[in-house]
């Protein structure tokens, strides 16, 4: 299920990953989700060799890692942009006119507004997400882990431009 592509990590990312692996050694299956969250915070997504290394580190079968990676939507087995924009696409945000916001984001990033996707320069991935639980701030989005809302379509250029 994972991508044929592999991660190209910087030396400091490699070091961080190795430190992480030592910390999780032998901790078993219950540590799998916490470990994958930490791995992804370093690497952005999880390739085949990294998935295998996670399995060996925890001491669990590789299939268990694949089962989890492919079940949870916040884990990625394909390359994603440097920053992930999750736009809430549920009832309260639809009522607040999130369609225009999604349209504007998709135009700026050159991706399909129906499905989202990653910009050609790999700087951003746009995702349409089920209710993000910030309905009092609709239309709402999260830029990586930063909550933002309500967001007007004409704020989009500043939002994207202000990101390094």
């Amino acid at each position, binding site marked *: 299920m994972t991508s044929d592509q592999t991660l190209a990590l910087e030396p400091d990312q490699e070091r961080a990953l190795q430190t992480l692996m030592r910390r999780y050694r032998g901790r*078993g*299956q*219950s*540590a*799998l*989700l*916490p470990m*994958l*969250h930490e791995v992804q915070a370093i690497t952005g997504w999880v390739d085949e060799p990294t998935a295998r290394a996670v399995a060996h580190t925890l001491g*669990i079968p590789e299939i*268990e890692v694949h*089962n*989890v990676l492919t*079940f*949870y*939507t*916040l*884990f990625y087995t394909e390359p994603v942009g440097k920053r992930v924009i*999750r736009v809430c*696409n*549920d*009832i*309260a945000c*639809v*009522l607040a006119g999130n369609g225009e916001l999604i349209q504007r984001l998709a135009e700026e990033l050159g991706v399909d507004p129906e499905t989202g996707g990653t910009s050609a320069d790999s700087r951003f991935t746009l995702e349409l*997400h*089920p*209710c*993000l*639980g*910030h*309905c*009092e701030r*609709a239309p709402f989005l*999260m830029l990586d*882990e930063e*909550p933002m809302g309500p967001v007007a379509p004409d704020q989009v250029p500043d939002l994207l431009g202000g990101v390094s």
Partner: protein
Amino acid sequence: MNYEPVLTARIGVVDPACLHDYEAHGGFQALARAVELGPDRTVAQVEAAKLLGRGGAAFPAGIKWRAVHNAEGPKFVVANADESEPGTFKDRILMEKDPYALIEAVILAGYATGAGKGFIYVRGEYPRAYQRLRQAVARCYEAGYLGKDILGSGHEFHLELRRGAGAYICGEETALFESIEGKRGYPRLKPPFPTEAGLFGRPTLINNVESLVSVLPIVLRGPDWFNSIGPANSPGPKLYSLSGRVRKPGLVEAPMGVTLRELIEAHGGGVSGSGEFQAALVGGAAGVFLGPDQLDTPLDFHSLAKMGAALGSGAVIVFDTSVDMMQVLERIAAFFAHESCGKCYPCQLGTMRQRDIIARMVAGQGRPGDLALLRDIGQTMRDASICGLGQTASSAILSAFELQLT
């Protein structure tokens, strides 16, 4: 309207990062009181309060507390903070703005039930709540509220935070256990119930965030106080997540049983958009639509159950007359088709068929008999799905047709 908020009293008042501020505003007094009472009498307070679970299922919390208290051997307490019902944001605000309250409640639950370890499973899309809780847990260890001999009780209790990873199904309690155990979030068959065989197969108390936080004033002020608020058969304060076409969307704390009209008019500042009420979706995507004739319905567990609806998590999404309800139904149908975990076929196939039928109706290609087909699929999912996701996946959509909103 002379109601003084209790569950949200510290919100916007305390610095959520500061333990001293929490202590200065009544923090850890409930835990101290519980230690005075002892485990057995603390559980009795929860039983006498007749607290019904605030996560959606309205199960009596006291029954769970007593069962885990009586169980032998290692056991766990789990806070279900995987809030993901569309339209629901109450637990997020509690955790972001008053994180120590949840932690105190979990420690108290551990003491009362005799559990040595607790988990708070926080929704993956709630990073701010997770960070605030993480910092607060560290402070509680430093201050001795976590670890050995808590408040001189002799009880040792440890607390671990877990982050979800984007799966609505993990709000289902047994799927949540699977997730903590490092597996796909597939719900388990019940029985056995969590109080007998829950997390890691051990007796487990699992409660929603709001349910746990509600125990603090129950222990401090007593069950009689709790029973004096709201209707006798679903008492207590309640959090409502109000959103959609109202002038002032937001978190509302009110006595259980506030009417839909009062919630919209007095708390939400009235209907926005056209200004004219069309419907409200109560209980989120798993809930039921109420129409203009039902504006005076008290929003409590029993009143809603009597009319075939459910309060669920207390989400209320309001629609004015300008909203095209078929598009809302399309969104709901797509949501369930996306979130069905695929473990059991009635739900896996039913949610997809439901989505396809609604989509073709929206596209103007509805066929004769589509509504009967939707009812049939809904009935099958209600009867044959193994968990609440499939059992409620058709309720909002069928209720919309019932009310002729489309």
